[in-house]
């Protein structure tokens, strides 16, 4: 039974846990090979992106199939602020958050009136339409994109400190901070309000919650996080280009959120790991199984899709639903 102090003790635990997780990640990054470190950086990026969906869909109940586009907004803002204002890297991340949040606020004000499939359709159109705009304006660098350079790791980290480890540190730290902030936010009355208006907007309004404003806020915050994820993603490939933000990216992060259980922050890591691991695993399996070229080239796609369908059919509420079920049945 949770006690009366449940709330603050939860936060206390978190305040201790997060630095520990950070330390563990740091130690881990020194032990695994470079490929894993690179993939770790990708996992961290996806953690941020998935949290942005968890906040939006799992809490405020809005669906977005266009978060890839918001990631693009963040990435372009970051790289432009680097090119034109020569901002230090850390500040470019803040610019990414602010720009995407601002964009999200405008979009959210329009989207706040939409529900379910209407919102899905609008955001999907955004995902298809927005990145291609980069080809319309020369300063956005076109298809070959703009180089986004977070620089080499500082010299004091030693000569063995690889670029990818540096990426991992940056994105890992960002993911850790975002997870912690979201943990607080979603545990606060904001999170509660969002969950309430998701299940019964009328009743929520009667509680004094400004439903429209609340939804726009969720969209804004979620967009800001997506913007950060976009900048981090651009960092891992050192480039901001429209094709880095395809429609499939939007789908991937929503998929990650579903695999994460949509409402659970800790699930975001599971979702992110799966997203990063799937292409490698299915690719390896395909080579292992062999077959004609037609077959091997489509096998990874087939396996990924089957996995996805099975996951949604068997565990529609994510991994923690299974844990809950097993816990219940063992009682």
């Amino acid at each position: 039974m949770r006690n009366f102090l449940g709330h603050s003790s939860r936060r206390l635990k978190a305040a201790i846990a997060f630095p520990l997780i950070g330390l563990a990640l740091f130690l881990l990054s020194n032990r695994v090979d470079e490929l894993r470190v690179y993939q770790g950086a990708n996992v961290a990026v996806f953690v941020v992106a998935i949290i942005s969906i968890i906040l939006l869909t799992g809490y405020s109940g809005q669906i977005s199939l266009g978060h890839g586009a918001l990631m693009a907004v963040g990435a372009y803002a970051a790289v432009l602020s680097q090119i034109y204002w020569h901002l230090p890297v850390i500040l470019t991340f803040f610019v990414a958050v602010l720009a995407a949040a601002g964009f999200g606020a405008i979009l959210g004000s329009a989207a706040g009136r939409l529900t379910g499939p209407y919102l899905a359709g609008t955001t999907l159109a955004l995902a298809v339409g927005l990145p291609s705009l980069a080809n319309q304006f020369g300063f956005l660098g076109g298809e070959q994109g703009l180089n986004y350079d977070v620089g080499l790791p500082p010299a004091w980290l030693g000569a063995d400190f690889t670029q990818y480890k540096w990426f991992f540190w940056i994105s890992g730290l960002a993911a850790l901070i975002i997870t912690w902030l979201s943990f607080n936010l979603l545990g606060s009355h904001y999170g509660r309000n969002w969950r309430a208006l998701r299940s019964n907007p009328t009743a929520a309004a009667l509680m004094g919650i400004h439903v429209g404003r609340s939804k726009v806020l969720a969209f804004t915050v979620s967009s800001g996080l997506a913007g950060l994820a976009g900048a981090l993603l651009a960092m891992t490939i050192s480039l901001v280009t429209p094709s880095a933000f395809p429609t499939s990216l939007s789908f991937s992060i929503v998929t990650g959120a579903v695999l994460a259980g949509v409402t659970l922050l800790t699930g975001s890591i599971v979702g992110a790991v799966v997203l990063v691991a799937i292409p490698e695993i299915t690719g390896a399996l395909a080579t292992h199984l062999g077959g004609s070229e037609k077959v091997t080239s489509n096998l990874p796609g087939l396996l990924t899709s089957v996995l996805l369908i099975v996951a949604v059919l068997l565990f529609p509420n994510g991994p923690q639903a299974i844990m809950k079920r097993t816990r219940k049945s063992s009682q």
Partner: protein
Amino acid sequence: MERLFNTILIGVSGGSIYSLMALALVLVWRSTRVVNFAQAGQAILSTYIGYEVITHTDNYWLAFPIALVAGALTGALIDILMVRTLMKRAHSGPVAGIAPVIATLGLLGLIRAIVGMIWGGDLRQFKLPVSNHGFTFGHNTIPFAPINLLIVVTTVVVMLIFSVIFQRTNLGLSLRASAYQPEIARLAGIRVDLTRTIGWAFAGAAGAVAGMLVTPTNYLSPNSLDLLLVSGFVAAVIGGLESLVGAAVGGLILGISLALVLEYISSSLAFPVAFVVLIAVLLVKPSGLIGAKRTRHA
């Protein structure tokens, strides 16, 4: 004047194709409340089957009904094998809205992979059932050909048939009742599972129609209908998702506004325009042109 006229004709022939895809999406939406992203995959699969028939018999009009039946069967199978379980397991809670999105996206990937395994990634093509040479008046060839006429007529026919089915028949009422409240529909004696399967079959057939009609003017590959799916979805949302007439009109609005912008503003703005048109419509009418009526809150 002629320029405007031609542009609108181009818009109509493009838009009618979006309408066809939108109709298929609305059919599934109305009969199961699922936005079916696998629709493009189903249409591709049926079209490949049609393609096989054409390459073996050289007869489009034989391939057409076969593709249609294949589409219907695929739709039915998908419902039986996947959607039923999905509806049982993910019908409520925060995932209810997105679980079907993920499942149908997964299905799209699955069908694409299967098609890729069987037919490979090469571009293919089959012969036009009717000419694509624009109608000619004197020296003037207008950008509207018998094939476009065929597509427009088919769109209207599909729309009318299904509108009648939905609004005027017991099957239509059963479809709608099963989609909204399966349990109550059961209590009214409706065989809900069967009814929903029929809905999926209808949509599968409509998707096959779209595939068989669009492909001759473009080409066939595992991905060749992806963009059409997005345009179709946008058209359906513009139209309001609840209405087949809305889907048809939404497709035309999208097609014509795209054509106008590409002609008069910039020919490379295709994607942003779709977004702007959509937002413009939804800002005025958040549930589309012919959307659901506003409901009471308490």
